């Protein structure tokens, strides 16, 4: 099942799968918004939304009703087509890239193997990096289409920031690609199954109670990657795009109602990709601590005593594991936003070009030298 599928049944299943993942992403956004407002309230010693329904959860519905009843507004001076197209395009890169991340082990039935991911791409990393950085275009479209100076300045700043951190982002994962020798996310997760064991100069140092996750091999790469994804998704320490003290709201100054909501969905989709990639590269993806999927399957089989049910249960357990990792990183995004102050623009550029880029370069060279030394001298 590398393409859309051969038989009609497979095509239908794959299409339904894509739609379900997309709808899951979209409906996760209001919950994240609620979590963000509520969490920020508690961090800043106030309440956040707590009047509408239990814990303020019905606030989300109230927000949706408000979005629906707002007048549809476009400024006179703007470019109308760009103005309306930008929020629609803002939805696309985040969702299309997220589909390539594996969410759980494949579901095996006697006739078929269903991958729990939108599509399995053999150059998944390159695809995700390429597609998700198209978000810079939607920001530029919004800034240009609004015809407002604040929007244009915000859009320019945002795109300069995104392309600057793209370098550190791209270079910080060269180390992990060197380590696993693959662009395929599923193969990368398979390499992280089981307990931790370092192999060097023919010796093996095992600590099987720890998981074999990438963070133990690439701690610096992890930190650089995570910091760069904050800049890529325009989140707070790097949200120069909407520095409200000087730019009102940056590239979405002129937007409101549903169009604004679509930019929000795009931003949260980027957070989800960042969290999903963090989990996949450095925290074992869907794997459960130091257990291999086979061990989990055997445990499930012992529990329910039927191969079919054990398969389904194992898929569910791995999906829950992935969701927990995703939720932890999403919460870190929210917590950081309400903890750190914003950078000044020259500090932001200095951090990206003069600090993170050299460190990522050093990480790449160090990883290459260590892999070279530990492998070459044993064989030679």
């Amino acid at each position, binding site marked *: 099942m590398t*393409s*859309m599928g051969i038989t009609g049944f497979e*095509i239908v299943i794959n*299409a339904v799968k*894509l*739609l379900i993942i*997309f709808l899951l992403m979209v409906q996760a956004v209001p919950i994240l918004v609620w979590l963000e407002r509520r969490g920020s309230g508690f961090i800043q010693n106030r309440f956040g939304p707590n009047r509408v329904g239990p814990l303020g959860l019905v606030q989300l519905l109230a927000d949706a009703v408000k*979005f*629906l*009843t707002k*007048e*549809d*507004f*476009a*400024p006179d*001076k703007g470019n109308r087509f760009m103005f309306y197209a930008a*929020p*629609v*395009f803002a*939805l*696309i890169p985040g969702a*299309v890239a997220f*589909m390539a991340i594996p969410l759980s082990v494949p579901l095996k039935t006697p006739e078929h193997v269903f991958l729990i991911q*939108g*599509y*399995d791409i053999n150059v998944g990393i*390159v695809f995700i990096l390429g597609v998700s950085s198209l978000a810079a275009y939607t920001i530029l479209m919004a800034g240009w289409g*609004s*015809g*407002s*100076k604040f929007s244009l*300045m915000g859009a*320019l700043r945002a795109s*300069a920031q995104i*392309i*600057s951190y*793209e*370098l550190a982002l*791209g*270079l910080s994962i060269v180390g992990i*690609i060197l380590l696993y*020798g*693959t662009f395929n996310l599923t193969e990368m997760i398979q390499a992280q199954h089981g307990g931790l064991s370092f192999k060097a100069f023919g010796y093996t140092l095992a600590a099987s109670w720890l998981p074999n996750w990438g963070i133990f091999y690439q701690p610096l790469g992890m930190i650089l990657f995570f910091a760069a994804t904050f800049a890529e998704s325009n989140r707070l320490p790097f949200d120069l795009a909407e520095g409200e003290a000087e730019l009102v709201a940056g590239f979405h*100054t*002129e937007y409101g*109602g*549903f169009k604004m909501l*679509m930019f929000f969905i795009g931003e949260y989709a980027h957070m989800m990709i960042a969290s999903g990639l963090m989990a996949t590269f450095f925290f074992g993806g869907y794997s459960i601590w130091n257990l291999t999927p086979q061990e989990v399957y055997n445990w499930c089989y012992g529990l329910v005593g039927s191969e079919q049910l054990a398969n389904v249960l194992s898929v569910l357990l791995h999906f829950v594991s992935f969701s927990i990792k995703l939720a932890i990183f999403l919460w870190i995004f929210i917590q950081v936003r309400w903890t750190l102050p914003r950078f000044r623009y*020259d500090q932001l*550029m*200095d951090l990206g*070009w003069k600090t993170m*880029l050299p460190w990522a*370069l050093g990480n*790449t*060279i160090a990883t*290459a030298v260590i892999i070279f030394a530990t*492998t*070459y001298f044993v*064989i030679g």
Partner: protein
Amino acid sequence: MPIGGVIFITLFIAAFGTALIYLARWTGGRAKKTSQAKFDIYECGLPAEEKKDTKISVKFYLTAILFILFDIEIIFMYPWAVNFRHFLNTGAGLTVFGSMMVFLLVFIFGLWWEIKSKALEWD
């Protein structure tokens, strides 16, 4: 390549987004032109200026050009990184390792020159 799936979901999301915009226009209605000021772009209490050609700092162009240079150099590292272990195991490790280190020297020189020539100073 699962190109079918990518095209399908891209078209679906585009249709979904367009439908949302039309839905909001239908339920909320178009904005009524009660005054010209309502349809002006955002401005803090002043009449909005008509200037079409906002001046933009040349630093943005410089950043974009430097980005293209360095991004292409980084992209060259990707195929090398993927095949590095394969080359090590087949005995061509020293050549592949050495040539990439020479390439990285050029990369580092470029970065050093860029910082030294103050191409990245924002003031």
